[in-house]
């Protein structure tokens, strides 16, 4: 596991210390902040925007604003720095969305044409086919037909979780556990085939 939060006893305390150092003028602490949040922000913003170029722009703006506010002592709860970073990124995306929505339609359409669609590339298609093969193996290896039903009804039919629980006599916690174990098994099967969770081969 490479998550910083696994190492730190308290991520809040580490964040507060980082804020304190930046306020004291420590330039290395600023670099640490950028390194600490860059990948996570990329991930968060890409999920929010669905557009890589826009998420990269927003990540730069977010880090710039966060650094300025930390330097000026405008972060009221330094131990909740991650929350501040997240809400800054989200607000920037909301503002950017509103700005785009006000643009003339022709301009918006040309922006749509520039979207990159990673799902349609040959590599993405090959990986998706591999994922399906692994999912079939997972279904074959599940210990009970009930677990197969849970996966299909939740992920494929997208049935309401409460309805699935009621009809299969499961508590919400039991249903979550079935899904959690399926994900763990899926991960193990992918690794057996030399694929990691991020979709690339042998990069761990």
């Amino acid at each position, binding site marked *: 596991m490479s998550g910083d939060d696994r190492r730190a006893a308290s991520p809040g305390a580490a964040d507060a210390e980082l804020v304190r150092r930046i306020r004291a003028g420590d330039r290395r602490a600023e670099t640490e902040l950028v390194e600490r949040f860059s990948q996570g922000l990329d991930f968060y913003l890409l999920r929010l925007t669905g557009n890589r170029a826009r998420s990269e722009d927003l990540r730069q703006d977010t880090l710039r604003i966060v650094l300025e506010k930390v330097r000026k002592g405008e972060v009221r709860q330094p131990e909740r720095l991650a929350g501040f970073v997240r809400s800054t990124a989200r607000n920037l995306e909301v503002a950017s969305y509103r700005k785009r929505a006000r643009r003339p339609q022709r301009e918006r359409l040309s922006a749509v044409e520039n979207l990159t669609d990673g799902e349609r590339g040959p590599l993405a298609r090959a990986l998706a086919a591999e994922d399906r093969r692994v999912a079939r193996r997972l279904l074959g290896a599940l210990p009970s037909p009930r677990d197969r039903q849970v996966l299909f009804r939740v992920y494929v039919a997208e049935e309401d979780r409460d309805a699935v629980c009621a009809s299969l006599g499961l508590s919400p916690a039991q249903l979550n556990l079935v899904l959690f174990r399926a*994900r763990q098994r899926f*991960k193990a099967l992918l690794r057996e085939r030399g694929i990691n969770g991020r979709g690339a081969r042998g990069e761990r």
Partner: protein
Amino acid sequence: MNHPYVDDHQIIEQYVLGTLSPEEAERFEEHYLTCAACREDLQLAERLGRALKGVAAEELAAAAAGRLGLLARLARGARGRALAAALFLAVALLPTAFLLRRNAGLNERLAQLEAPQVNVAIVRFEPTRAADPAVPPVRLTLGEAREPVVFEIPLPAAAEGPFRAVLHRPDGSVLWQGEGLQPDARGDLTLTLPSTLLAAGDYQLLVFAAGPEPRRLARHAFRVVR
């Protein structure tokens, strides 16, 4: 939120299914900003969902191809062609019959929606910052029939929109949430829900001010009795 908590409470599954409360979802997003393992696991959960959908699509395609293969084999002889045509018509007509029946149902629903609504249930909450546990929640008695229920939520005069509102079911899961909400001319938020969404039990409606540090403006409780 830390990593053992995420694993112990299957937070990733709940996040993917959208069953976390907005506050928990925010805490998880804050956590994964600095947790590469959680980001990887979140991607995995979503890949598993996509892969299972893909498997289901392949199974459906294979089943359809099997039916077409049967038709082709049947169509080889003269008698077979007639049988294949009959089978084809049966397969083709079944969805049409289903759609016609569903259309009739939709027309009926549309007529109900367009008809004037009499004695619509209107729940107006008192302006409050937090629900007082000593005060019993607003009681709302609903019948079996589907009817609209209107909630009027007053907003503090000084508060500026947009607002976010979240309605929690009795078990704490999210029944509905709306973002970017603006008050009406009277300064209220108005929410209309079909009564069929509300099972018996105690509900909580939370209203937040938008902004870099979202602030809770009000919490209202109501009890549905059936």
